[in-house]
C-alpha cells in the first residue's frame, strides 16, 4: 500500500484515495494540421515503460480531485517525489543521486513508501515516524 503525499492537500493519504493516470509530461502535438500519422500514433500510444525511474500522473480521486505528478521507481516501488501539475521533476533517471542528499523516506523495505517533494522534508519526517 502506498502512502502518497498530495501536493495540494499537503498530507499523506492511502493509495486507495488515488488513481494512476499513466505517463506524465506528454505533450500534445502543437500543430495538429501538420502532424503526421507517425507523430500522432507516437503521441497517442507509445509510452515509456522503464525498469526504474518513471514520471507519472495521478489524481486524488476521492480527495481534492486534482491531478499531480509522481516520480516513482517501478522496480523498488519507492515514491521519490510528488509535485503539482505544470512543474518539472527534480529527480530523473539521469540524476537519481539527488534523492540521497535531500531524502524522501522509505518504510518497510521499499514497499510501503512515503513520497513528498524533497523540500517537504519536515512533513516527511513527521509522517514516517
Amino acid at each position, binding site marked *: 500500500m502506498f502512502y502518497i503525499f498530495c501536493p495540494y492537500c499537503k498530507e499523506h493519504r492511502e*493509495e*486507495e484515495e488515488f488513481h494512476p493516470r499513466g505517463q506524465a509530461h506528454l505533450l500534445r502535438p502543437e500543430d495538429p494540421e501538420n502532424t503526421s*500519422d507517425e507523430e500522432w500514433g*507516437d503521441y*497517442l500510444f*507509445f509510452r515509456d*515503460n522503464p*525498469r526504474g525511474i518513471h514520471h*507519472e500522473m495521478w489524481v486524488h480521486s476521492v480527495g481534492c480531485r486534482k491531478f499531480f505528478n509522481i516520480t516513482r521507481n517501478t522496480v523498488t516501488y519507492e515514491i521519490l517525489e510528488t509535485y503539482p501539475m505544470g512543474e518539472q521533476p527534480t529527480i530523473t533517471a539521469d540524476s537519481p543521486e539527488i534523492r540521497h542528499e535531500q531524502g524522501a523516506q522509505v518504510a518497510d523495505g521499499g514497499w510501503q513508501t512515503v513520497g513528498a517533494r524533497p523540500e517537504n522534508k519536515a512533513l516527511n519526517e513527521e509522517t514516517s515516524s
Partner: protein
Amino acid sequence: MQRYSGFGLVKHAFGHHENWERQWRNPEPKKRYDVIIVGGGGHGLATAYYLAREFGVRNVAVIEKGWLGGGNTARNTTIVRSNYLWDEAGRLYNHSLDLWKGLSQDLNYNVMFSQRGVLNLGHTLQDMRDIQRRVNANRLNGIDSEVVTPQQIKEIEPELDISNRARYPIMGASWQKSAGVARHDAVAWGFARGADSHGVDLLQNTEVTGFKIRDGKVLGVHTNRGDIEAHTVGCVAAGNSGVLAKMAGIKLPLESHPLQALVSEPLKPILNTVTMSNHVHGYVSQSDKGDLVIGAGIDGYLGYGQRGSYPTIEHTLQAIVEMFPMFSRVRMNRQWGGIVDTCPDACPILSKTKVKGLYFNCGWGTGGFKATPGSGHVFAASLAKGEMHPIAAPFSIDRFHTGALIDEHGAAGVAH
C-alpha cells in the same frame, strides 16, 4: 526422445521409476543458430517447437534468463477460450483453440486440457447488449458461443448467486462450451520436450543483454554467456519486452503491470466451469487439485514487482464473494504476481520491426496463455518464411500508426 505410454509406465515401475530419461538436454550454446528465440515461456517454446517440427528449421536456440516456463506461463490462471469480438482476434484465438484440442496427443505430453466451458456474466443492460453483440460476432466466425439466462446459468453452475439480493444481480451470460482450462506447467514442459527432441537447444540461465545490429540488420545477441549469432531473432519475453526493445533501439506501445492470482485451500469438487465477470471484476475456476483459482485486474500503475498490490486482492475477493457468497469463509493459501505487457487496444503484437530479421511477439497482456499453441504456430511460420503469417499480419506494430486497431477491451476486459 523416450515416448510416454501406459506400457512405459508399467515398465518403469519395475525400476522404481529411477530410470526415466531427462525431458530435455542442457546444452552449451553454439556460436551460431539459424533462429534465436528470446524467452523460454510457453510462447517462445511453442514457436521453437513448430519451427523445428513443422517448418524444418532445426538449428534453433531458445534463450531464457531463468528457467523454462518461469515467467507468466506458470503464473497464470490457465483459462482458455476464444470468444473475442473482432474477426482478427477471433481467428487468432480460435486457431489456438483448435490446436489445444489435439495438443496432448501431438506433444505426447498430458497438458490436461479440460473443456469445461466459460461463463462471462452480465450484470447490467449494457453488459447484456455487449454480450449479445459478441455472441453474434462469435457465431458468424464459427466460434461456439451462446447467450444464457440466469436459470440456465444456475444449471451450469449451481452455486452462483443468481438472486436479486446481490448488489449487482446477474442478468445473463455468454457461454462458450468448448472453452476451459489447461495445466500451465505441462504446456511449457511439453513444448520444451518436443522442441528438444527436434534438435532445438534450450539455453537456460542465459540472459540476453543486448543485440548485435549492423546496417539495420540483426546479426545476433549478446548474453551473459557470450555472443550468439543469428540472422533471425524472435523476442517473446512478455513483461520484459519493453526492456528488450529498448536495447534494440525500438519503441513499443506497451506498459508493464503486475497481475496477480490467488489459490485457496483445496475443497471438494464444487465448481463445474470457469466463471468470469467484467462488471464486478473477478473470475474463478477450480483446479483438479481442488483449490479455487482466482484472479482479477492489474495494478493500475507500471510495475515490475512480481507480487501485485494489496488493494487489488481486496477488490478481487469482493467480486468472488459477490458471485459466490458461500466462499466467504474459504481461506486463501497463496498469492503471486506476474508482469504483463499491456497494449492500448488489448491485442497482442506479432510483428516485424524496423530492424531487419528482428521480430517481436508480445503485448498479450492478461490473456495470452490461451493463445500459446496458436501464437507459437503462426509466429514460427512467420519466422520461417520471413513474411508474417496471414493470421498474424493484422497484429503488426504498424497498426498504431495506421489506426487499424483491434479494440478488444470488451472481450479482454477482465484479466484472463
